[in-house]
Structures are given as structure tokens and as C-alpha cells.
């Protein structure tokens, strides 16, 4: 039987956590929720966000600010019903194997938090409250302008009017809002409170490693604008032969790409501000980076080395299919989890890339020159690709990719070097040496 992975990432057994967001509207709660979900899913930790607003919209699609007035009994009832529906769905999801559920709502009163805590604990799920508290008027206004004027609540309305209404909605929340443990009687809660975008942080009663990991990740997030550039190495001698792995030199055309890369990077960056360059420890990425400007800092990471194909290293796909037919088939069935004999699976690569992602989150402009599988994994993190999709994403040679994280997703730009190269993409079941990627999907 082909070897199967039995690693389960960093997930501790039997842990189930509900991350409950807390905070007034326009404090970046959804941004935090979205980032946390992406990070966890990428680590194979089943995570999902339950946005109470979406449930409420079923009932009240375009409410005015009055709806959120605590004296409005009808509004109050509907909002409570929405929260109940969201929590009920989350519980169903936990029963089907969920590990980290994120409840995205304001949860701005003690009473609501108590209700959420009791309701969720009752099902044997731990709760960590994550509060974003911000008093800087400018930041709040920027957030209101950017995000809320595009909110489904205000669809088709005048943006000025929408912003005004939204301000009023926030006022209504402010009337009843209590920050966590403001009265000193919520000290038993597990919570993370981020104040003024990380200027102050309170961490209370972290219960396990996974919680500490989430807290650490959230503390590393920053909101300064930046981009990440990804490129594979130039075409290698083994690429030409259709062989995988190895530590080969660049082909003639690969050299050509290395020479062209500085120009391509300059075009994409748009100025001569220096990037930090991360390569793997293999010859072909180091050679690809060697013509980049001298004032770029270059670092080699073992963690960026190509997926280790174990016994199949240096073989063509045909040779693998001939020698290890069962393995070849098993890999196509579940490419993400298939671990080469004596080598790695995509899942293993993701685990070893985790420190890289943490570094990426806290860094600014980085250019990564690495390998097909590794770039697929990093790309999957930024683009939220599923485990079924990510191992099949075409990442052509001689192409530079620029990823720019935005509030609700990541923007991608592609720069082609116009230097010919073989294709190393392979479709399911195929043993072709060089095959053109299917037109749909991918980069």
C-alpha cells in the first residue's frame, strides 16, 4: 500500500475553539476574522467564519440606523435571532469536524458575551474572545469609507448618506458597548484585546497551544501596504528532461530568465526601493537571484526547498508510473496528502512553510524565488485555495507574480518574462514530460 500521511498539522487533539469577535463596527473585526480563517485553513485546521450580519440580512436586508437602537424591540429581537441562527449553524459545523469557528459580530455587551459563552461551552467548545478596540477617529473614518460604503447593507445608496447612517449605527452601539472586563467581572474569560491597532494588547487565560498560536498570528498582522513577489527559478536542466526534484543547474534559457529578472522586478515594483529576496538552498534558485541588484538583501531558507520526492527524486513521471504504479495512482487521487516514499507531501511542505508565512506577515516587501510546489503552497495561503486545488495550480516558469493583500482578499498581477521555457505542469493521470496546463483556473 502506498504510504499515506498521518500528520495532522499543529492541531492538538480534541481541541475545538470558537473565536468570538468583539468590538464596535468599523474596527477591522471582519479583516481579522478573515485573516485568521485563511491562516488556519491553510494549516489544515478546519476553520469557518459565521457572520451574524449575513444572517440578519435575511430578515432585514437594508436596515437604517434605528434598527440598531437598543430601544427598538423589533430590531433587538431580529438581531438576537440572527445571532442564535449563526451559533446554531456553527454548532452543526463543529459536529461535522470543525475545529476553529469564528463568530463575527459586535458582541458588544456583557450580557451578549455571557449568552455566547454559555451557549458554546455547553457544547464542549472553548471560547476565546478577540476584541478590536480603537479610539482613533481617523482610522475609524478610513475604515468606514473603505469598507462600509461597499457593504451589502447600503447597496445602491448614496455613499455620503450611507456613511452618515453608518455613523449613527455606530452611535447606537456605543450607547451599550462595554469593552471586555471593563467592570472587572469578566476576568474568567479567555480573551485577546487589541487596542489601537496593536498599541496595547491584553491576553487573558490562554488555555492551549492552538490558542497561543492564533494570538501570536494576530499580533503579527500589520496593515501597512505591501506586496509579495513570487517567482520560480529559471528553467533547469532537469526541467528540460521532464525530471522532478534534483539539484540541477539552469538551462541556457533559465540563465536568460535570471538575466531578465532584475528588469522585470523593477517594472513591477515601479521604483528602486529595495526588496528582500528569499531563495531556497538549491542551486537553481540561487542562480536565478544572482543578477538582482546588490543592495537587495538575499537570504537562503531551507524551508523554501522543493517538495522532496523521496525515492522518486530525479525521475520522470513515466518512470514513476512504471516503477511505482500504485504510488502514482495514489498521488493523483489525493495529491495534497500523498507523501512520496521517503519524501514529503504537500501537507508536509505547508507545515514547514509555516514560519515563512509568519515572517511574511510581519515583513514588508519580499521577493521569493522558489519552486513549483512551494510557490503553490504560498499562493494557496494568499488566495485561499483549497487542498484539492492547490497542488494542481499552474505556476509557469519565467513568470513573476505580485500579490498585494487587501482588506477582503489578495490582488494578483502577472509579469511574463517572454523567455521560452518548458511547461512542468501535469494533469491528473498524465505521464507527459511537458504538457500545457488546462485553460481554466490558475495563475
Amino acid at each position, binding site marked *: 500500500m502506498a504510504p499515506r500521511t498521518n500528520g495532522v498539522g499543529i492541531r492538538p487533539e480534541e481541541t475545538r475553539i470558537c473565536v468570538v469577535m468583539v468590538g464596535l463596527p468599523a474596527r477591522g473585526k471582519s479583516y481579522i476574522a478573515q485573516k485568521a480563517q485563511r491562516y488556519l485553513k491553510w494549516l489544515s485546521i478546519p476553520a469557518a467564519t459565521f457572520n451574524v450580519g449575513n444572517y440578519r440580512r435575511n430578515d432585514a436586508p437594508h436596515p437604517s440606523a434605528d434598527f440598531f437602537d437598543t430601544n427598538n424591540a423589533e430590531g433587538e429581537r431580529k438581531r438576537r435571532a440572527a445571532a442564535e441562527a449563526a451559533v446554531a449553524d456553527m454548532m452543526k459545523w463543529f459536529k461535522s469536524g470543525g475545529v476553529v469557528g469564528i463568530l463575527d459580530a459586535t458582541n458588544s455587551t456583557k450580557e451578549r458575551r455571557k449568552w455566547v459563552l454559555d451557549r458554546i461551552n455547553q457544547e464542549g467548545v472553548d471560547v476565546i474572545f478577540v476584541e478590536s478596540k480603537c479610539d482613533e477617529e481617523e482610522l475609524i473614518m478610513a475604515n468606514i469609507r473603505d469598507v462600509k460604503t461597499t457593504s451589502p447593507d447600503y447597496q445602491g445608496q448614496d455613499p455620503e448618506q450611507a456613511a452618515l447612517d453608518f455613523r449613527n449605527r455606530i452611535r447606537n452601539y456605543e450607547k451599550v458597548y462595554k469593552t471586555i472586563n471593563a467592570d472587572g467581572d469578566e476576568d474568567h474569560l479567555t480573551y485577546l484585546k487589541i487596542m489601537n491597532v496593536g498599541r*496595547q494588547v491584553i491576553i487573558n487565560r490562554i488555555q*492551549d497551544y492552538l490558542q497561543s498560536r492564533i494570538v501570536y498570528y494576530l499580533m503579527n498582522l500589520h496593515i501597512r501596504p505591501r506586496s509579495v513577489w513570487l517567482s520560480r527559478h529559471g528553467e533547469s536542466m532537469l526541467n528540460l528532461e521532464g525530471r522532478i526534484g534534483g539539484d540541477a543547474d539552469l538551462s541556457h534559457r533559465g540563465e536568460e530568465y535570471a538575466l531578465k529578472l532584475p528588469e522585470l522586478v523593477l517594472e513591477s515594483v515601479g521604483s528602486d526601493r529595495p526588496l528582500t529576496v528569499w531563495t531556497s538552498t538549491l542551486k537553481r534558485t540561487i542562480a536565478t537571484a544572482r543578477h538582482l541588484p546588490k543592495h537587495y538583501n538575499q537570504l537562503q531558507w531551507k524551508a523554501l526547498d522543493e517538495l522532496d520526492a523521496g525515492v522518486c527524486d530525479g525521475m520522470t513521471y513515466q518512470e514513476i508510473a512504471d516503477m511505482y504504479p500504485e504510488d502514482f495512482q495514489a498521488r493523483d487521487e489525493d495529491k495534497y496528502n500523498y507523501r512520496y516514499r521517503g519524501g514529503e507531501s504537500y501537507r508536509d511542505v505547508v507545515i514547514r512553510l509555516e514560519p515563512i508565512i509568519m515572517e511574511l506577515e*510581519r515583513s514588508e516587501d519580499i521577493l521569493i524565488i522558489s519552486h513549483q510546489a512551494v510557490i503553490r503552497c504560498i499562493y494557496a495561503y494568499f488566495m485561499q485555495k483549497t487542498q484539492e486545488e492547490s497542488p494542481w495550480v499552474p505556476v509557469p516558469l519565467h513568470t513573476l507574480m505580485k500579490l498585494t493583500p487587501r482588506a477582503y482578499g489578495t490582488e494578483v498581477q502577472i509579469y511574463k518574462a517572454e523567455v521560452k521555457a518548458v511547461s512542468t505542469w501535469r494533469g491528473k493521470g498524465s505521464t507527459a514530460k511537458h504538457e500545457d496546463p488546462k485553460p481554466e483556473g490558475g495563475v
Partner: protein
Amino acid sequence: MDTLLTAEIAANAPRYRRKSSTFIDGIHDVPSEVGNLAPAQLYSTMSGRLFHSGRIAIVMVGLPARGKTHICVSMARYLSWLGVKTRIFHLGDYRRATVGQGGHVPQDYFYPNASPASVMLRQKILKKCREDIYGWLNHENGQVAIYDAVNPTASGRRALAKEFAKHDVQTLFIESFVDDQEILKENARNVKISSPDFHGMDPDEAAKRYLKRIETKIPVFETMAEEELNYVKMINAGQAFFYNNVSFNYLSHRIVFYLTNLHIKHRTTFFVRAGTATEEDSYKADAPLSAEGEAYAQVMAETLMRHREQERQAIIDQGGPDVPLRPLTIWTSTRLRTIQTAEPLEKLGYKVRHRSQMSQINPGVCEKLSERAIRNLYPEEVEKHELDPYHHRYPRAESYHDLAVRLEPIILELEREQNDLLIIAHESVLRVLYSYLMHCSTRDIPKLKFPRDEIIEIIPAAYQNEAKRIHIPGLDPRMIPGSPEDIRIPVPPGFDDFGKRLSPISIPAMMMGTPPSATEVTVGFATGDRKGSISVSNTGGLRSVSGSFSGGERPVTEKIVNNTAKEMVEDKVEDED
């Protein structure tokens, strides 16, 4: 210059010493070589500093018995592991060195309205300590200086931050704030119990008196609330953290992450090897246990159970409380032989977790090659390897450094774990994890020995950890040193005091010339005669080959390796700043 400074630190701070054995926790050693103490350094620069962060002073804040030493030592351990050059400066060491053996500071030493003579003395001690901090940061390429002192007043802390800033050093304060009486009493009991002052006294009474003494000695203490300073306040040993982040800084986040996983509960870690497998020579084949391997798993499990029970009994016999054994959790890699080695324990109902990060070091091209072949095929690589066996990687292989980086998340979980922990893994993984807990130099890590007939037990203590070795009786001698799954990556010739330096584990004379089935990773050569003895690729007695170690006694029963942790704790009793 450097040696002078080091010598002076050594003279003024008697606990700084050079490492004498890998069985003693090296966390307080003065590194004997520049840059050899960074198992998981992510990247390095010419200066040896992480270039994102400049020079940093971590300044501890907190009254005695708040666990400051434990926090300092743990942080230093973790930061050094990450490749940050870190050193702890305990102000108490300087005070003791100044007042001399058996001397005492004046009664009003810590008072805000102390006499001029006491103020002078205080200033003198502080000055000496700070000079050493600057000396180390400026001339010895240090990056993080951990300044362990009470620092009780806000004005003092502000002045300190200003002074450090003048020297171009960023300051991060870490306060350990405890108002939970149980934790206080526990801390006081643990550290102060051995003091002659409290001899024969009821432990609770001793703890109470000790805490009282602190109050009288240090009457003024202001907890941190300085908005303009970077600080982390750790409340009741990690129950809560308050983090005031003036300047965004990678290291401080990292430290908070680490601290959220730190706890003060007492628990031990055991290391054992996996049993021998059927297909012995291959890294790539994930072979199951052989019959001998299965027998080993059984005996190992029995020995461990017996040992834990004996230790519990020993505590009771010494008048300790009759408490049940702490729960035990087992971690293995995802390799079959480690999983199978855990099976006898799993059958007893212990929880086993498999961690893919704990797979053995990847031998790359060296797999299945004899050392002779490696030398023939990759003479240049062998040369490079000999210069730096820790960081060098053979083609396609992992270096120990790569392995350490991969194991970093495991380190944090190791800190987090509250149960006793048994780690069953390949020797290469044990080396790296052991080096974290015992702070070994990167020069020693590739050569640490974990023979199969020993369970290694690491017992944590605030000032430094202790290592114990428990003999597993009745094993087939062939399997003891053998590492069939190992790689024969050559390591450079040993040092003159090779045997002594490495560890007190001795290789019995009878082990020489074991059958070739028992292969050995670390193939040594005779000191000063490299060419002569290359092909000794498969005996456990390689150190005997080097000639510097001549067999010797193997502990028949459990043997405790003495170190001086106890003496140091005693010394701490008077350490009240």
C-alpha cells in the same frame, strides 16, 4: 579586549563558567566560541544580529519570588535557540561579587531613603553591571542583554530606558506581577526552602516569613503603567498579559508568544530512541520494528513505568505528599518505528500523538553510503562538513540547523505541555531537542549520544535544568548503540578531551567490534590521525577508536548525574534584588 571582558564577567559573576559537560545545562555558560550557540537561527548577518532588530535590553521588573529567574532563563534559552545572541546579567551576581563571600548588604540597601553609604554601594554595583551590559552589546556582538533586577520604581525605569537609548539600545521591560497568594507561596517554598535560615521550619511558615522579609526589605514597589515604555506585564505566571507596544518589534512579539506558552508547573521530559527496524539501512524505507525492536519497546515501557513509580515512592519516603503520578503523554514522529515503539504504552492507555515535524534528519545523498564512499564521492563536502558539522548539509540532506528550524514549533508545544512527556524519536531529533533543554553548543549537538539502553529524563528547575539517565536492563548489546536508521555522516575528529566533554556516557569495552549490523552515526577518527581510521563506520565504540576514551564503567542501575543546580538555588536564597 573580548577575552578581558569575558574574564571580568567570569570573575565578578561567579556562576559564569565554561561548559564542562553536555549533561549540565549550559544556559549560564560563557560561550567558548563566537557564534556556536544558535541551534535554530533563521538567518545570520555579518554582525551575528538579527537585522530587523537592533540591540535590545530586556529589563526584568518584579519583586523576589515572582519567578523572574525562571522567566529570564527560559527566555534566554529560547532566544539563543533562535540565533539571537543573548546573555543574562543578574544584578544579584554583581552584588554578591561586590560584598564578597558571606557579606551582606546594609539593611537599608533597598530603601528609597537609604543612607549615603548604601546609595553609593548601590550605584557602584549598578554601574559595574551596566558597564558589562554595554561592553557585551558593543564589543562582543551581543544582541539581547537580559537585565535581571527588581527595578521597583517608575522613575528608575524611565531613567534606565533613557540611559539605554543613549547607548542606542532599545528597552523592553518584562514585569512578572503576582498577586495570587498561592503562586507566591509556592514560589517561595520552592526556592527558599533550602536556606539555613528556615531550617526545620514548617514549609508554609518559612514561605510566609520569607515573603514578609521581602516586604520589609523592599518597601516600595510600583507596578508598571508607564505609557511611553515598551513593556509586557505577565500577571500571575501567565494567566494574563498586558502588552504596551510603543515601537513595533518582531522580537517582543516572539517573546510574548513564547511566554504565553510558558508555565510554572513542574513536569519532566523523557527521551528515548525508537526500537530497531527490519530494514535497517534506509532512511527512505519506512520500515516497521524488528522482533528485537518490539522487545525493546516492551522493556523500555516497563522500565519507564517502574522508574516513575520509584520516584513517586522516593518522594513519599522523604516525607512528601502521597500524590498520584502526573499524567504522561507520548509524542512520536510519523515514522513507523517510532509509532510502534509507543505501542506498549498506548495499550496501557497513555495518549500518543504523532508529529510529522519530528521525523529524523534527512541524509540526502549520504543514505546507504559508507563513510569511505562518502569521502571518495564528496571529498569537498567532507572537508566543509568537518569545519562546521552543525550547519553544513550534504547534497540534498538536512543539516542539524535545518532540523532545528523545523522543530521550532515543537519547542513551544514542549513548553506548553503540562503532563510528563515521553518523546520517542530518532537520535538526530533527540539531539536537537535535548540541546534546547540543556543548552548545548552547536559544536556538541551532532555528537550527543542516546544509546538505546537509557531513558534520559530532564527535570526542570528555575535556574537550570537537570538531566538524569535511567538504565534499561537486559537489552541485546548489539542494539544499544546501533542506529540502523542512522546516517553515516562523518563528523570531524574530536577534541583532546572528547570523551569528557561530550557526556559521561561511556562505551563499555565489550562494545568494541560489535557486528556490523549495528551501525553508528557518528563515525570518529583518531585524533590527529585522520587518514588512519576512516572505515570504522559501524561500531558503537567509535570513541574508543579515537583513543581518548577507554571503556569504563557503565551505570548498571539508575545513575544520577550530579550537577550544581542545588548549590545555586541555595545561593539564590539571599538573592533579593
